[in-house]
């Protein structure tokens, strides 16, 4: 035998053979690595705490000067004017318009695509269709923004349809954003529908239901919490999307009362305001974070609803 085994046993007592034990090496390296890995995971927690602190601290500075009620319910947003006003309602109306328009596009198209992929398409077809759909999710938002601004708003709405609208509109931004969100809604709801047990479909078919009836009356209700999660996730994407609205929705913060008007969303404001070099600690600088905090809290709420719904259907099957 050419090998000598390293033993983990204790030091040999002189003259006598040492007893057998299972004492191992201390393995300090292993412990250090475990700590490092856990620290890397802790970075994600630090990120969340960092986000909260980064937003809350300047926002507190903001709310020391502007009462929360003036911020939340004021209907005039003019943070840079000499006679400044900080009512966030105009930004919220613009965000609501673009989000609603986006959902009107994304929900039917996303769910239709999901039903096709989950219930109708053969595996081979699905393998082709899904990646194409995912390309939509991979296109940079500035490219969407440019498209919304020049083609959808400029060419289609103004030249072809002759709509009475200016250079920007919440409609153009919302429609393009809706298409951008289609893959999100489609893939999450397709997951939910695919998770519905095959036995339920077979049971339905055995009762004489056709595929459409099975899809709409068996699969759809069974996957409902996942489908709602998909829509909620779509809402979160739409509320948080920045570039499309910054480029195509406009930059005037006014209460939006129709889809052809222009308007500035919460994200649009942050993107535009950051262009000017606000001094750290100035009210303009703090305003960014106050709006950011509101945006974060809205998406946080929406995300948790979505995560909770997804967990529900994961547990169900």
């Amino acid at each position: 035998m050419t090998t000598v085994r390293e033993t983990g046993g204790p030091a040999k007592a002189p003259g006598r053979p040492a007893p057998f034990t299972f004492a191992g090496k201390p393995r300090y390296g292993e412990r250090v690595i475990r700590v490092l890995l856990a620290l890397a995971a802790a970075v994600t927690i630090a990120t969340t705490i960092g986000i909260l602190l980064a937003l809350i601290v300047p926002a507190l500075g903001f709310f020391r000067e502007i009462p929360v009620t003036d911020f939340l319910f004021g209907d005039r947003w003019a943070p840079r004017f000499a006679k400044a006003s900080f009512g966030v309602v105009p930004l919220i109306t613009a965000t609501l318009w673009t989000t609603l328009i986006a959902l009107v596009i994304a929900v039917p198209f996303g769910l239709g695509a999901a039903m096709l992929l989950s219930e109708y398409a053969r595996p081979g077809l699905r393998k082709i269709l899904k990646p194409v759909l995912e390309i939509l999710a991979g296109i940079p938002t500035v490219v969407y923004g440019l498209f919304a601004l020049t083609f959808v708003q400029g060419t289609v709405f103004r030249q072809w349809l002759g709509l009475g609208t200016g250079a920007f509109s919440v409609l153009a931004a919302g429609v393009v954003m809706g298409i951008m969100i289609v893959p999100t809604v489609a893939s999450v709801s397709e997951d939910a529908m695919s998770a519905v047990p095959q036995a339920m479909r077979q049971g339905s078919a055995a009762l004489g239901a056709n595929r459409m009836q099975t899809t709409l009356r068996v699969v759809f209700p069974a996957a409902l919490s996942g489908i709602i999660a998909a829509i909620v996730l779509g809402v979160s994407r739409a509320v948080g999307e920045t570039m499309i609205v910054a480029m195509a929705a406009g930059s005037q913060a006014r209460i939006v009362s129709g889809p052809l008007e222009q308007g500035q969303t919460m994200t649009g404001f942050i993107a535009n305001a950051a262009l000017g070099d606000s001094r750290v600690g100035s009210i303009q600088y703090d305003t960014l974070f106050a709006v950011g905090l509101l945006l974060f809290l809205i998406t946080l709420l929406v995300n948790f609803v979505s995560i909770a719904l997804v967990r529900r259907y994961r547990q169900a099957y």
Partner: protein
Amino acid sequence: MIKDTDTDVPVLKPEEEARLHEQHGVPVHVAPTQKRGKNNDRVTDAILTCEDVNVFYGDFRAVTGVDLDFARNQITALIGPSGCGKSTLIRVLNRMNDLIDGARVEGKVTFRGVDMYAKNVDAIEVRRRIGMVFQKPNPFPKSIYDNIAYGPRVIGMKVANMDDLVEEALTGAALWTEVKDKLKQSAFGLSGGQQQRLCIARTIAVKPDVILMDEPCSALDPIATTRIEDLMAELRRNYTIVIVTHNMQQAARVADRTAFFTALADEGTGDRTGVLVEYGTTTQIFESPRDQRTEDYISGRFG
């Protein structure tokens, strides 16, 4: 003469080993010598012992109250119907259960007199001493050579010449002549039976004392199965082997001793748990079982 691969720690008779532990102040479990119930005799030269072992997965009790000794340099087969806890028990014997979330072992499992579930025991060290071959051949996605060399490398074995060790391990697993010209090729290119022998070679390369085999032939055809069985008879000279098998004929062919397990339903909850029914020499178990359940199983009336 018992051959031990460990040059530093010679193998002693259990009593001697116990005395030595006492001298060194190492906590030691002294195996009781009395008889253990009517169907379960003590093994005189036990290397591994189980005493009142219970295994839980969360709240579910998979194995209940197992007393079982494994004799040195013998092949012990664990047989019984599905769900009788035999595969669970074999994973207790080298602490593979540690890797399963929620698994918990109660009772005492000793190897050479040392409680292997004691606090100061390093589970890694346990697995180095007590190797395992699995149900499905699981070669690493590496070359044949690297599959063998992996174990010695990770445990920091001082190897003078790795090529020699690889050859020795492959020869020991009766695989050398078949693969000696393609050591650098992927292990995935081997047949199922060859892959399983590679896994055995990989295990003996780290020079364990005990080899646990969890239904090693269940994924193999009859010819490959025969080769593994022949190999086990060879390995028996240097290693203690514990094998879980579904196949009674296999137990009868290869094992020196056989333990029969069954699943009992709890009267209250209806939960099934594995228990040891009878343990003895293979001849005794198969020819004159003392328990009716063993007899029913052996004669094919049950399971």
